């Protein structure tokens, strides 16, 4: 009998905790914003930019530790800089989402 009462009490607390967000008055902030195509595209561009910047940093370390020669370094740096610049240019061309 006591076990059943304890169990019932535990169940009641759990159900109230779970149900409360659904039964409380609704508000405007209850809507989770959708993830738009624009946001997806901008995120991809940021990723491209960050990948290129990370690669540049990695190249610096590889060059400083003599894992890569001067000629290769110059060529690869130019390539990654161009990629980062292109991503930044496209990001700037997009409508800024936050001012």
């Amino acid at each position: 009998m006591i076990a059943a009462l304890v169990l019932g009490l535990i169940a009641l607390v759990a159900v109230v905790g779970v149900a409360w967000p659904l039964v409380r008055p609704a508000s405007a902030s209850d809507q989770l914003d959708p993830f738009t195509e624009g946001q997806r595209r901008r995120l991809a561009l940021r990723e491209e930019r960050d990948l290129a910047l990370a690669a540049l940093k990695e190249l610096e370390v590889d060059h400083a530790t003599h894992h890569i020669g001067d000629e290769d370094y110059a060529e690869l740096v130019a390539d990654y800089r161009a990629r980062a610049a292109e991503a930044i240019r496209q990001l700037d061309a997009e409508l800024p989402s936050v001012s």
Partner: protein
Amino acid sequence: MALIGQGALILALLLAVYAAVGGLFAGLGRDRRFLTSARNALWAIFALVVIADAIFLYAIFTHDFSFTVVADTTSRSLPVGYMFTAWWGSQAGSLLLWVTILSAFSLLALRATHRALGELQPWLIMILALIGAFFLVLLVVPASPFVTQLAPVDGVGLNPSLQNPYMAIHPPALYLGYVGLAIPFALAMAAMIAGRTDARWLVASRRWTLAAWGFLGIGMLLGSHWAYTEVGWGGFWAWDPVENAALMPWLVATAFLHSVMVQERKGMLKVWNICLISGAFALSIFGTFLTRSGILSSIHAFVSTNIGWYFVFALVAIIGGAFVLILWRLPLLKADQRIESLVSREATFLFNNLLLVGIAFAVLWGVIFPLVTEAFGSVRETVSTPFYEFFVIVFGLPLLLLMGIGPLIAWRRASLKQLQRSFLYPLVAGLVAGGVMIGFGLGSSWPGVTALSVCAFVTVTILSEFVRGAAARRSIHGENWLLALSRLIGRNRRRYGGYIVHLGVILFVIGAVGSSAYETQAEGLLQPGESLKVGSNVLTFEGVERTRGPNFVARAAVLNVTSDGSNLGTLKPAKRSYLREQTTSNEVAIRTTLTGGDLFIILDGIRGDGAVQIKAFYKPVVALLWIAGFFFVGGVLLCVWPDQREARRILRRYAEEPLPGES
């Protein structure tokens, strides 16, 4: 009490189903109320599972043998220290531990990702709740820890093999690893459902994978040490299916931890990474299934045990679900770049992945081979150690070599001139090491000479990485060597933590190869006063000594050890008879020398006339196996430790545009 425990588990199961549905509604309807409600359900599940744990442990510690599981795994004479071990000594108890860890990890994962991965939260809750529901179904229906009976006067007791300090840590460590892999898997699935296939899920899952991988590695190492000191057959790894069960997900997770770097740096291997993390989690479920279904003893046990089909269902759901999601999101998973040269770091990572997955598949085939032969024929056939060793040598040696080659090659491509400069010293070190070994008469084992030469090659490449990095900092920042080295490691924790783990792997390989390829052994029946020689050690049998422990009696052979005329003391290998459990166990005697070798003695038998059968080994450099563990733990901690600079960079990157759930 049992009623409350069982009720708590049933309620937790209902809430897990609700949380999965709530997560689905929150994801589809973009409704924050369902998200909060489902999250609260996960909190409630955690609380209910803790209640069930408390009742179960209370029953164990108060010797409440009306709980069938408690009566089957403990006794009144069981030392208190091993009461906790009894928690995971049974099927039901270990599954309860699984759910406990999973519910705690689920809350931690939600907390850790609620800002940066807000949009993934509904789907993350759904996946984690479904995994939790699966294990709760097992606990409620076929494997309840709260089944009761008419209480016997005493319990059966705990298997003596489990009455070892390592068994108090080894299974929980493995479970932390198995369960930990659920989080990166759930993150990957959530990312695909949400269409968020960018690198964010990868960044969020990296530490979870590393931690789970670290726990699996530590668990296996502790298990090896337990097998070495407790099982008493003279080795540390027997390719037992239970050992293999942990090795397979560890190998696949190792591949993931390497290939994830390629996706982060180059935007490649996106589908491969999702396959790897799904495979690692599926193998962790398969590992739990192997150890818990009873299928290992016979395929017929699969029919007689009642949890086998549940696991088959779970495996099909995991693999099938991941496959469908990958197909659905394939257009979003295209590689941003391609591999430009086969001589590049990304290419070495790819080769490393293929070799690791190759070993994992070979081990998997070895594990399931008896089941396949029994299912499709009348005779059950098994594969033995040579099968596994063949693949470990064929795939493992190139893998070891890649460990040394990878760090020396730049991303994207490497020139011949650069390769010559980078590989000169490591190659010389490898060749010199091989020559020295042959010169000292150690050329009897060609895999041994090859492996140890490759170890020398890799060690020099790793150490040269530290030296080059510190030298570069010295020349750029004008720092002294110590400061340059500490800042180099501190600011590139992942890279240098990885190198420290690699050094641990090298030590492990040296220990494993050295102790097996160059081991000496001797065996003999000794009367008091007689001697046995193994290596340079002479063992003189002095007599049998009887002792009594809390729940056992022991008989030990007292052996005086001398080497080159000097007395090294006595060793006492023993046999213990556990009174309540009605079983005996071997207690090996081990003496570790300053050079890292072990004198390892097994008492094989005691005759009525007082003679003893002794088996003795001398295992050189075996201590390196255990020292490797410290390097492994240190390296993993360095990698997992929060990097504030990296966290700031990621936050800055995503703060540029507030995303759903973060505003």
